[in-house]
C-alpha cells in the first residue's frame, strides 16, 4: 500500500511524493443558511497503478472531493483551499484554463448515471470523438477510428455500427461502457469513477468493475473509486478512505479496513453490508440515525450522535474533535476510543455479528 502523509504539515513546504497528492483539502459553500463544509481537511494520496476507494454515506463529501480534483467547481460558489498535486503540478491555485487542458487528458471521470451524463442529442461516437479531438490534433476520420477501437476495447459488440447510435439506444451497462470508453479515450493517468455501478444491475456491475480493473492494469493509471458500496471497494481498492461529514474517519489499506476496522462508523458500514454467508435469521445492523447537516456539524466527533460507544470516552466525543492518528503501518483512525477499547469491542461485539 502507499505511504500516508503526516496529517499536520505546512502548505507549500513539502514536495508531493505521490502521483496524486491531496493535502488538507477544504471545500466550503457559502449559502443563505450558513457555510456548508462539504469537505473539511482531507488528505490522501494515490500512486499510479493503485486504486483508492472513497467510501461514505450520501452527503459525506465523496463526490465533492472528486469534483474538486477535476477542477469542476470553478466558477461556482465553492471556496476551495488546500493543495492538490497531480504529477507534481498544483491544481487548486492553477488557472481554470490550465486545469481544463488537464481534464479529459491527464485525468478523466466516470459518472454515476450514464444516461443523464451523456448528451441525448449526440451519438456515442460524436461524444467520444469530441473528447478525443480536444486533446489530440487528429482528423475526424482518425478520431472515429479511435472511438471504434475504444468501444471495442470496453466490450461493445459491433462497435463500427454502434458508434453511430445515440445513448438512448444503448442499454444501461453499455452506456456505462461507452462512458468508460469516453473517459479513457485520451489515456488518462488518473481515473475517477464516481459510483460507476450504482445505476446498474448486479450482473452488469461485476462486468463493469472487471473492466475498470483490466483497463487500469493496461494503462497503469491511478484510480479513485467513489462508492457507498463496500462490496465494490473490496473488489477493487488497494486503499480505502472512509469519509464522514466531510472528514476522514478512517484510512488504511483495504486489508486493514476489512480485517481490523477501528472506527465505529466503519463497523457500522460493514454491519449494514448484506452477506450471503450470514445466517438468514440475523438482521442487518444498520447505523442508527441520519447523516449530519454539513452546516451544523455536531461538536466534537461528528459521528457522536450516532455512535454506540460515544459514552466510553468520558465526554471527549462531544467536546473535542478527534485527530486522525496512525495506529500502525499507515492505518489511521479519528476516534477517541483507546486502542484497547477498540480492539476489544471489535473482537467481542462486532466481528462475531458480521
Amino acid at each position: 500500500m502507499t505511504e500516508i502523509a503526516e496529517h499536520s504539515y505546512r502548505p507549500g513546504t513539502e514536495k508531493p511524493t505521490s502521483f496524486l497528492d491531496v493535502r488538507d483539502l477544504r471545500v466550503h459553500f457559502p449559502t443563505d443558511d450558513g457555510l456548508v463544509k462539504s469537505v473539511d481537511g482531507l488528505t490522501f494520496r494515490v500512486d499510479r497503478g493503485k486504486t483508492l476507494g472513497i467510501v461514505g454515506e450520501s452527503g459525506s463529501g465523496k463526490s465533492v472531493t472528486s469534483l474538486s480534483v477535476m477542477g469542476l467547481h470553478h466558477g461556482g460558489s465553492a471556496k476551495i483551499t488546500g493543495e492538490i498535486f497531480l504529477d507534481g503540478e498544483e491544481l487548486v491555485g492553477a488557472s481554470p484554463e490550465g486545469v481544463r487542458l488537464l481534464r479529459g487528458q491527464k485525468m478523466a471521470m466516470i459518472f454515476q448515471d450514464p444516461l443523464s451524463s451523456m448528451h441525448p442529442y449526440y451519438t456515442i461516437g460524436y461524444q467520444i470523438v469530441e473528447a478525443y479531438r480536444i486533446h489530440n490534433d487528429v482528423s475526424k476520420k482518425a478520431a472515429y477510428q479511435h472511438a471504434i477501437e475504444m468501444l471495442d476495447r470496453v466490450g461493445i459488440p459491433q462497435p463500427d455500427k454502434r458508434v453511430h447510435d445515440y445513448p438512448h439506444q444503448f442499454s444501461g451497462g453499455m452506456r456505462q461502457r461507452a462512458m468508460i470508453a469516453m473517459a479513457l479515450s485520451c489515456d488518462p493517468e488518473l481515473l475517477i469513477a464516481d459510483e460507476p455501478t450504482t445505476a446498474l444491475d448486479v450482473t452488469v456491475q461485476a462486468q463493469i468493475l472487471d473492466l475498470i480493473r483490466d483497463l487500469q492494469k493496461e494503462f497503469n493509471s491511478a484510480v479513485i473509486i467513489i462508492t457507498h458500496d463496500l462490496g465494490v471497494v473490496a473488489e477493487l481498492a488497494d486503499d480505502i478512505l472512509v469519509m464522514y461529514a466531510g472528514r476522514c474517519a478512517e484510512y488504511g489499506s483495504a486489508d486493514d479496513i476489512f480485517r481490523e476496522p477501528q472506527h465505529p462508523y466503519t463497523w457500522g458500514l460493514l454491519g449494514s453490508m448484506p452477506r450471503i454467508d450470514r445466517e438468514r435469521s440475523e438482521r442487518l445492523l444498520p447505523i442508527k440515525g441520519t447523516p449530519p447537516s454539513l452546516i451544523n456539524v455536531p461538536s466534537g466527533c461528528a459521528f457522536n450522535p450516532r455512535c454506540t460507544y460515544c459514552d466510553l470516552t468520558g465526554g471527549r466525543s462531544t467536546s473535542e474533535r478527534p485527530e486522525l492518528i496512525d495506529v500502525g503501518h499507515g492505518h489511521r483512525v479519528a476516534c477517541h476510543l483507546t486502542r484497547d477499547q477498540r480492539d476489544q469491542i471489535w473482537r467481542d461485539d462486532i466481528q462475531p455479528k458480521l
Partner: protein
Amino acid sequence: MITYIIRRLFAAVVLLFVVSVITFSIFYLVPRLIGGSAESLATRYVGRAATAETVKVTTERLGFNDPIYVQYANWAKGVAIGTEYDYGAGVEQCPAPCLGYSFITRQPVWPDLLDRIPVTLSLAAGAALIWVTFGVSVGVLSALRRGSVFDRAAMSVSLAGVSLPIFFTGLVCLSFFSYKLGWTAPGGQFVPVSENPAKWAYAMVLPWITLAFLFSAQYARLTRAGMLETMNEDYVRTARAKGLPEKTVVVRHGLRGALTPILTIFGLDLGLLLGGAVLTEKTFSLNGLGKYAVDGIIANDLPKIMGVTLTAAFFIVMASLVVDLLYAVVDPRVRK
C-alpha cells in the same frame, strides 16, 4: 421516418379540412341558425339598393337555398378546382383556389391575398430573424450571469417588452425614429424585395424591430429558463469533465439542449404571424394579411375574412408540421 412524414401530412390535410368546415359554418350556417334568411345573406352580394326581385335571383344563383352541405361542397370545389360566378352581368371565371368574391369590391379574394402575402412574409421573416438572434443571445448571457446587473437589466427590459402592446411601442418608435430623427421610413412604404432590397429593408426595419422587441422579450425569458436548467444537467458536467472549452460547453451542450422547446414556440409564433400581424400592420400601415382581415371585418366582407382565416390556418398547420419534422432532426429520441 417517411411514414411519419406521410402521416403528419395527412393529418395536416384533415386539420385544414376541419378548419374550413368550422369557418364555413360560422359564416354561412350560424347566421341562418340565429334567424337570418337566405335572402338576407344574398342581400350582401347585390348591394344596398336591391329590389326584391334581384335579391331572389341572386339567392337562387349563389345557391343559398341549397342545404348547407351542398353549399360547402360547392365552395370546397371552388377552392380545389375553381368555379364560375355569375353576377348577372356575365359569367366570371374564378380559377382554383377560388376563395370567393369580395362583397364590396367584387374582386376575387385569392389574387388580393397573393398581393398581401409578401408584405406579411417580409414582416414576419425579418422580425423572426432579429428576435431569435437577439432574444436567444440575451437569454443565454442572462442565464450564464444569473443575478448580475446585466441579467437584472435584461429581464426588466424584457418584462417591459412582454407587457407593452405593439401599438404603443410602434407609435412611439414611429414618432421618434421616423418623424423626429428621420432615420427610418414612416409607415406604408412597402417595396417588394425583388424590386429594391435596400428600399425594402429601409421600409421594414422599424416594423421588424418593434415586432422583434415584443418577441425577443419572450424568447430571452424562455432561453434563460431553459439554459438555467440544462447548464445544471449531468451531461454538461460531463462535457466540462472532458476538458471542452467553456464556449463549446455552453453552445453545443447547454444551448443545444435548451433549444428544443424554443423551436416549438418559434414555429407556432411564426405560423401565427404569417396569418397576419394585425396590430403591427395596422400601426405601420402595411398592407398585409392582417390589415386585409381587419378591413374585411369592418366592412362585413365575409369572403375576405374566410380567405384570411384559411390562409392563416394553412400557415399555422404548415409551421407546426415543419416544427414536428425538425423536432425529429433536433432530438434523435423522437425518431423511430
